[in-house]
């Protein structure tokens, strides 16, 4: 059915076209029309992503829905797209969260609505582009371009200290990207031939034979670019500032999708292209991941600003993703292939699940903020008295953040801990601290904000969630429960691609021996 429809191109360009329509068409004057067009565009994009998921043949690891057009012929840079079981779920997540953000900001944004919504739609298209690109330069263009709308969202609609936060965010990530570009150009040249010039196909880069020293250089280039994005300790300090200053929608996209770009980069570039260097550096990466889980968990405990707290919690939870990815090397080396699959799949599930949960928590904080105009925990207390319905959803997401079994927050962490025990008791034990730490910082925050008697007049004036807010929270709640109770369908989509990654891409690239095509 989809043979003749360029569905990936639609997923990229449809939201961008929608953005163009509301900026240049309806504009600021027709606020309702603008919002409706934005919503309908986002809905169609989401439905298209579901159609793609439905049509996707999850029994195969191959790239699907391929598109390939020439773009910059002189440099052999092509507009080529395709998805596998790793990237497709992220595209669905991106399209879903964009739709949710548009619903959640309905009538809430007063300043330049059309620009605000257009920024989110543009970002959606570009992020889908990041996940769908199979050409490294196209990937890089999307990767960089996506920063611009986020930069604007924080810089224009953000809090009082937004300029500092945007600059920090921009310079941090741009700094990382420079190294990525150099690495990609180098690889493009290596993958090409003298006769035909450079070759920027990412998957051709996967089968390159690269010597150990070069792998190490490339490893660090990738590491700087992607670790900043995840973010990994110690290059994480831009995230709490960016979150605190960002408007609710910006925080949601930042936490739910943008952080995943970093770990997606690890999966798509670092692990398959420089497996020997990654193997050698795996312990280093595992230590950084554990620092994220334990150290950042303690830091989160000390926060009094709800957004900062959830931002730190995000870093800690992303630690499980990087942990799941980098334990796979030892597991494969020790013939625990099943556990390696489980670790990587756990990392992927954690990426998706963290998208739902952190997104939902930022939405919850946004709901509180709209009513009281404060993010300080101390300004709240006893909210459950006036917002019992909200309290229920907020409780569910808090518990999911604490990794309660039955919610999606449990699945990835459980798998990563099971897999890492195979490598070392200590890794599992330190990662397992999340059980205590995540519960402590999340539920302590919940207690101080929600429970108790009404603490002040602002709280007593709060109104419970309306239909719009309910739709948003219910849909995320259902997803959190669905994938908590039954993660198998999601795992099935990813499984062949992850298996292929382990069988063919984590093998040594020092010589052409033993590599599969």
């Amino acid at each position, binding site marked *: 059915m989809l043979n003749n429809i360029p569905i990936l191109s639609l997923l990229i360009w449809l939201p961008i076209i929608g953005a163009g329509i509301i900026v240049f068409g309806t504009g600021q004057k027709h606020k309702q029309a603008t919002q409706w067009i934005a919503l309908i565009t986002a809905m169609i994009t989401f439905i298209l992503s579901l159609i793609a998921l439905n049509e996707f043949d999850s029994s195969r690891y191959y790239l699907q829905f391929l598109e390939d057009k020439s773009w910059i012929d002189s*440099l052999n840079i092509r507009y080529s797209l395709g998805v596998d079981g790793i990237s497709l779920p992220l595209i669905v997540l991106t399209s879903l969260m964009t739709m949710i953000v548009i619903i959640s900001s309905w009538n809430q944004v007063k300043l330049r609505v059309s620009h605000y919504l257009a920024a989110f739609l543009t970002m959606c298209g570009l992020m889908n582009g990041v996940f769908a690109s199979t050409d490294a330069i196209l990937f890089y263009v999307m990767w960089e371009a996506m920063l611009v709308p986020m930069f604007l969202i924080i810089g224009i609609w953000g809090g009082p200290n937004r300029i500092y936060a945007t*600059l*920090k965010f921009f*310079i*941090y990530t*741009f700094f990382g990207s*420079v190294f990525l*570009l*150099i690495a990609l*150009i180098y690889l493009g040249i290596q993958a*090409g031939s*003298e006769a035909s010039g*450079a070759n920027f196909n990412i998957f051709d880069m996967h089968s390159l034979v690269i010597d150990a020293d070069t792998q190490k250089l490339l490893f660090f280039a990738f590491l700087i670019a992607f670790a900043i994005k995840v973010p990994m300790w*110690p290059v994480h*300090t831009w995230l709490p500032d960016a979150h605190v200053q960002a408007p609710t929608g910006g925080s949601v996209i930042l936490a739910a999708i943008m952080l995943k770009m970093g770990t997606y980069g690890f999966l798509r570039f670092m692990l398959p292209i420089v497996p020997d260097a990654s193997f050698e550096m795996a312990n280093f990466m595992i230590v950084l991941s554990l620092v994220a889980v334990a*150290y950042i*968990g*303690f*830091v*989160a*405990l*000390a926060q009094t600003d709800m957004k900062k707290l959830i931002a730190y919690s995000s870093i800690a939870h992303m630690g499980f993703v990087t942990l799941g990815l980098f334990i796979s090397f030892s597991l494969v080396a020790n013939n625990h*292939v*099943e*556990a390696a*699959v*489980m670790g990587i799949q756990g990392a992927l599930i954690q990426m998706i699940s963290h998208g739902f949960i952190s997104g939902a928590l930022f939405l919850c904080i946004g709901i509180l903020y709209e009513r009281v105009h404060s993010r300080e925990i101390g300004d709240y207390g*006893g909210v*459950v*008295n006036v917002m019992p319905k909200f309290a229920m959803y907020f409780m569910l997401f808090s*518990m999911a953040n604490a990794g*309660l*079994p*039955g919610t999606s927050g449990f699945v990835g962490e*459980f798998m990563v*801990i*099971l897999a890492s*025990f*195979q490598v*070392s*008791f*200590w890794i*599992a*034990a330190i990662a*397992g*601290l999340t*059980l*205590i730490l995540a*519960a*402590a910082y999340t539920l*302590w925050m919940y*207690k101080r904000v929600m*429970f*108790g*008697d009404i603490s002040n007049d602002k709280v007593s004036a709060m109104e419970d969630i309306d239909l719009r807010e309910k739709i948003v929270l219910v849909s995320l709640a259902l997803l959190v429960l669905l994938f908590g109770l*039954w*993660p*198998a369908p999601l*795992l099935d989509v990813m*499984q062949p691609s992850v298996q292929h990654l382990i069988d063919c891409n984590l093998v040594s690239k020092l010589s052409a021996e033993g590599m599969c095509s």
Partner: protein
Amino acid sequence: MMIQNQLLAIVLLPLLAALVVGLSGSLPRVWAHRLTVFAVAMSCILSVDVAIDQLTDQASPLNYNLYTWAQFGSFSMHVGFLIDDLTATMMAVVTFVSLMVHIYTVGYMKTDPDYQRFFSYISLFTFAMLTLVMSNNFMQLFFGWEAVGLVSYLLIGFWYKKPTAIFANLKAFLVNRVGDFGFLLGIAGVYFVFGTLDYAEVFEQVNNGYTDLLIPISDDIFWSATTFLCIGLFIGAMGKSAQVPLHVWLPDSMEGPTPISALIHAATMVTAGVFMVARMSPLFEQSEIALNFILIIGGTTALFMGFLGVIQNDIKRVIAYSTLSQLGYMVVALGASAYSVAIFHLVTHAFFKALLFLGAGSVIIAMHHEQDMRKMGNLKKYLPITYVTMLIGTLALIGTPLFSGFYSKDAIIESVQFSQLWASGYAYICVLIGVFFTALYSFRLFFMVFHTTERMDDETKSHLKEPSAVVWGPLIALAIPSLFIGYLLAPSMLSGEYFDGSIQVTEQHNSIAGIVEHYQHPFSLALGSVSHWPLWLAIAGVFTAYMVVVKKPELATKARKLLGPVNHILENNYYFDKIYINYISAGGVGLGHRFWKWIDVGIIDGIMVNGTAGLVASISAKVRHIQTGYLYHYVFVMVLGLLTLLGWLYWTALNH
């Protein structure tokens, strides 16, 4: 197929009722209890039916998967049920006590504005507890384990305006999470050794002589993986079943409404740890270190928590410490490999302790929510039904011959005596002395509340009357099994036939064999108790209580003075709370604060990030004339630089 639908109905009916009552905002109050009571009653009837079939061996044990939760190659995790004698017994006990508590709640929570929410929670609890006991694998076990913890958290904090309640529920959840940390590592250990999380597959490997693995802790220290995973799992049980030093949450959990104290914090959830270890009996049999560890923890809990019961003045706290001590008894039985005896005590305890809590609740309603026993006295005159049923419960608890607690508790003491493990001597002394203190605190409560002089104010006195039938009905319904269940079950429980198949004991740990050898008719056992220590210790305890409460109250004050520092330690609960709150939790937050301010803000942001920015700024100040200060100019220069770089790379590659 029929039985599978029946099992599904047992689990899902309470869940369905909880969802309907909890999510439909404007459901009338009567429908809240009609729906949930109906669902749990159905669940109870169906469970009893399953139990009868299983226990009379009309049906063979069932083990099947409902659906695949996740699959990785040959390793898969499922959701499924394992139904055998052990599970069926637990199902019947859980649903029966839950039903009684549902009915009781109709009266107890009559005037509470959040009536619907309460019923929703207790039904949800029933669902969670059933998934826990019926599970056939560790993943689902962990789900049920945490789900009951969640509902316990919600119910302790049910009155969310009370600062003490919301402190207690957070404390309960976090202390349990500390236990779950061990539990999760234990589960990971199971996967490490056996490569599966399915009970049946694990037990099969154990029975077919598996090879234990070693866990490297450092370069030259290796732990037996089986010992490690058993202790890990047991640390989980220490959290859930409130064993020292993770017991601190249970006394505070009394902040919740009394019906849940009976259901969750006495009869069912807190026994989940005991159930889990019994379920894993084939595994625990493999590790003597773990069994010794269990004996020490259980013995300590049984005795030292009993001491604390003696000095409490809050009626619910006395029963809470009693619960801690009795859980210690069950755990001791587990350590002595007398798993079936532990479950026997779990069952009898579920009835008489639920009875005691609900009786205390009846007293509390009559006293208009006064819980201090010093303000009660002579209530037998006003609450005759509560008085008689509480007496039955108390006699059962202290192990009066013929009452249910007698058979199970005596069996525990005997099995510890027969145990060959080195820690059994310590545990034996603990449980033996514990008998005296059990009788002392139980009858101290009983005399203070129901006898002695009337110490309440006239206002309260004028309203004192027996609460409605929905309150005293469940008391009677629980008093009956508290009387007879021990006598009825003793023949099969003590002959070791009851749990044939579901519990495994190796030859060298078979402490029950001694009991089986000396086994007599329950009636003769009761007669024979006059020649054993426990009976006389209990009588001494009752007598002491009588002396210090009724006859010579000044003795209590004297004893307190005489004990001086010991009393001080007891009144501070052995300083556990102080250490946990002042050092561990405050220390954790303080550590986080220091990490944040010193490392994140100080070093990373202060020196590395802003320092670099400052350096750039100072350099750029010198070359200011060519800088405009606009960001897009900088970006332009950056892009230009990149293009140059790109061009250079491309050029060199072409000339390569």
